[in-house]
Structures are given as C-alpha cells and as structure tokens.
C-alpha cells in the first residue's frame, strides 16, 4: 500500500515537472482532466492586459532632447514612483509588430517587478515628449509614456532615427538583462512559441491514472522528458538552503534514497 502511494507520488511529481516545462499546454491538460470543462486558467488581469496591448496611441512627434543624467535627475525630482503606476502586468503584443510578422505569442512583462528592481524610471523611460499637450495617452504622467508612444512601426520614413517597437524592446531589454545577469536573454526566455491547442491532441481514457497521463505527454514530448532527467527536478538531493529550520535535515531525494520509477 505504502509502496503504491509512493509510486503514485513520484508519478505525480513527474507529471507536474513536465507540466511546468510545457507551460502553454498546462491549461489544456487541466481542461481535459476536468472532463472537457471549458474553463481555462488565465493570469489575473490577463484580459485587461490583452486589451491594453491592442491599443494604438498617437505617435509623439517631438521628444525633449536631454542627456541621460539630466533626465534621471529631473525624473527623480518629479517624485514619480512605482506607486503611480496604474498597471503592473502587461502583455507585449502590439499590432505594430503583428502587422509585419507573427511568429511568437505575446511576451509577459511585469512592470512593477522591473520598476522595483531598477528603482530608476529613466532607464526605460529614457526620453519624454517635448511638451505635455502633444501626448494623449492613458499614462498618469507625460514623463513616463509607454514605449509605443514613440516607438511604433519600424523604418518610419518621417522618423528614420527612431527604432521600431520590436527593436526598442530588444535593444532595451536584452543588454540590460545581460549586464544585470538577471532575466531571460534567449528568444524562448521571453517568447513562447505558438503552441497548438492541445485539447484535440491529447487522447486519454475517461478516468486516466497518473501514469497514463505521463505516458500520453511522453508520446510527443520525449525529448523534453529526456532533458528533464538531467535537471534538478529529477536529480535533486541533499539539504536545501531554502527550507527554513530544516535546511540541514533533508537527506532524501530522487538522487539518494528515493527510487526513480520511470
């Protein structure tokens, strides 16, 4: 009995790990498990973020010319802070980029997290419109307009020196992530590839057991499963510095006493 439970536990762990790796299909598998219930989990504020991503605001014609240091000081003096940010969760999925190409799903961007980590709005909000009146948008303040207020379509003949929105994102995000040694720097780190709807692909009996679910995942995701065998999810062992009060006690793990049953 105990052995059975143990095996079930391990199987569940395998399923969970694979689900974590194949995030986009998570919702679909959950749905199937819930016997074709159409409720799909979404992040809080997802719909609003999606709507915001579709907004097109008039392009800022002229920007105030000032150096980065002056800009940073002036922005500091306005006492704008993270508390003034209305929204924290954004989806980067602009029609400006979609008009040219459509290779990736939206990128999830946590504005609050970035604002808190950097502490200096001028790192991303590097310039502002030349005058307040020229900007009509939903931002609280013309000092911190959104990226697409200035960066819109690429190769704009009237603003040749201005980067398009896609390049503005990449040129701003990637080097900073590299310098800070934080955040994703590869393509798939931010972009999820377009994943087909798994509802039709997953074929399971009425009440599947855990191993059947795992086997069904592995039917297509064999490479991912093999990769997982080399990760901490499979090989973990020994004490964990993150387990309060028990940091030195955890001696068991898949790499030590537990059995890898797969």
């Amino acid at each position, binding site marked *: 009995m105990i052995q059975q439970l143990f095996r079930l536990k391990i199987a569940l762990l395998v399923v969970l790990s694979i689900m974590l790796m194949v995030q986009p299909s998570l919702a679909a598998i959950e749905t199937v498990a819930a016997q074709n219930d159409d409720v799909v989990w979404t992040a809080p504020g997802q719909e609003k973020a999606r709507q915001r991503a579709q907004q097109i605001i008039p392009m800022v014609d002229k920007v105030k010319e000032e150096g980065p240091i002056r800009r940073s000081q002036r922005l500091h003096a306005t006492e704008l802070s993270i508390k003034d940010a209305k929204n924290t969760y954004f989806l980067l999925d602009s029609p400006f980029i979609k008009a*040219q190409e459509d290779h990736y799903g939206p990128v999830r961007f946590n504005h609050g997290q970035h604002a808190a980590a950097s502490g200096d709005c001028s790192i991303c909000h590097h310039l502002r419109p030349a005058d307040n009146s020229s900007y009509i948008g939903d931002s609280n303040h013309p000092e911190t307009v959104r990226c697409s207020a200035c960066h819109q379509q*690429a190769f704009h003949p009237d603003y040749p020196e201005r980067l398009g929105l896609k390049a503005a994102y*990449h040129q701003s995000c990637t080097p900073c992530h590299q310098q800070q040694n934080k955040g994703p720097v590869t393509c798939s780190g931010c972009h999820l590839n377009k994943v087909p709807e798994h509802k039709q692909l997953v074929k399971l009996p009425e009440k599947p057991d855990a191993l059947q679910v795992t086997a069904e995942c592995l039917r297509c995701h064999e490479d991912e499963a093999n990769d997982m065998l080399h990760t901490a999810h499979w090989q973990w062992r020994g004490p964990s510095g993150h387990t309060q009060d028990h940091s030195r006690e955890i001696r068991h793990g898949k790499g030590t006493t537990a059995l890898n049953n797969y």
Partner: protein
Amino acid sequence: MQLKRRSFFKLAAVGAATAISTPRSALAWQSKAPADAFGCLMDISRCIGCRKCEQACNAVNELPLPVRPFDDLSVFDEKRRPDATKFTVVNRYHSGRVDDDKGLPVADFVKIQCMHCQDPACVSACITGAMSKKSNGAVHYDADKCIGCRYCMVACPFEIPAYEYHNPLTPKVMKCTLCETLLSEQNKPPACATICPTEAITFGKRSTLLKLAKKRLHDNPGRYVDHVYGEKEVGGTSWLYLSNVPFAKLGFLKLPLKPLPRLPETLQHSLFSYLWSPALLFTLLGGVMYRNHKQQTLQHPEQPGDVS
C-alpha cells in the same frame, strides 16, 4: 616587302589624330545610378548573430532548407559565403574586442549579401541585359535573358552571384533580390530587415540612410569607426555598413572608390563609337596590303600573276 619604319609612324600618326579628334563629350562616362534608390543600412554593432535574417530570406525566396537548422549557431565556426541555396549569410569575427565586465572576447557579426551597387559591374559585364539596375535600387536578374555565361560572377567585386551548377537544364544565377517583389507589390521592406529583432538592418531611401549613418557617427562618438562602407566603395552601394570594429578586420575588401564599369566602358565606348576603330584598322590594313602589292609589282614587272 615589310612595312618601313617611316611608313609605320605615318600611319600611326594618322590613327592617333583620328582618335584624339573624336569629340570628348561622346566618350565621357556617366553614372546610371538611380537618384532615389532604396537601400539598407547594416549596423554591425547592433547585430547579435541570431541568423533570423538568413531564415527569413530562405522562406521568402523559397530556397531549400539547409542541412543544419537556422538555430544552430555552430555554423559560425567557419566563414561562409552566399551560394545558390542561400542569398545571405552571417559570419562571426573575433577582432580582439574584449567585454569590459567579464573580460571575455566579444564576437562581431557581419551579414553578407548582394550589395546592389549603384553602378554594378555585373550589369556592365552582362552581354544580354539579363542583369539590370532598377530605379528602386535593386540589381535585378532576368532569367529569361540569361545565357549562362557567368560574366556577372567574374565581374562582381564582392563575389556574390552564384550559379545553380546542380541544375543541368534550367540553371540560374542566384543572388539577393532586395526582395523586389515585396517592395514593389506590397510596399514592404526586405524580409531580412523586417525580421531583425534589433533593427541592425534599417531599410529606407539610400539618401536618408546616409544621413542617418552620419547622424549615428556624430551622436555616438567613439562607438563607431568613422566610415560608412558602401557610401563611396565602387561608386556607392545600396547596402551600407556601420561598424564598431575596423572594416578590414571583418572581412570587408578594400575596393576602389570609382565605379568599376567606368574604365572598361570608357575604353569600349570610345573604341567602338560609330565603329571608327574597326573602320580605321581595316583601312590601315587595306592600305598596307595595297602598298605591298604595288611595290611587289614594281620590283618584278616581268613576272605575271599566274605561273602557268
């Protein structure tokens, strides 16, 4: 009898006088560069070597898929050239640049494709007019006119045009088209420029791009080498390059600043205008023959023409 030294000089003098007296205006070589051409500016300091441009080019031009996929970055281990199956390639160079923080060598990436010269040598060399420079800037290849002589491949200073040697029946010269169809039919930039995630390739009018390049040089002192490759090389090209590393270290050729067709076309057009040079040549030869014949008959008047 041989031509006497004095007679030879006389004839040569006549020839030279004719050549000099031909009106100069008819000979003066004029550039046929389109005034309002499109082009691309590649900023090497922005390129991250993701090979997305190669992938987009492959898809748009319906070229065969390569053996090694586009996300395989180990292709950078060797220098590649565009060929019949790829119109553009990105190569990696280690110029000795070192990362300030980590102390590791930093790579630079250079994209190669047809430069779409303003006065292309391939167009000048093509004997059937299969190669032509369009007003939109593209150096266009018309397979229907091509006879496969491959003079264009010999003439190109960048060694770009490739040939479908594997195709015995309908071989074509293969090279970047500047995505002419996209440009003319959908008013879209070339696929490589559109896909580039960092806008390392900027598309626009060549004149605008030149101004933009100069502005970038001016606004970012110390970032770039003070040179826009393609502004003057071989009389100017539609593809322009900015670099943060000396161009010579990145495989760029040091090329003459004059348009390459200038010298051969000047020579050819001055020699063959109104067919004066062949006319003169045959007149001279005729004169020599006549003179020789006359002298022969004078020396041996008793011998008739036929021996019998």
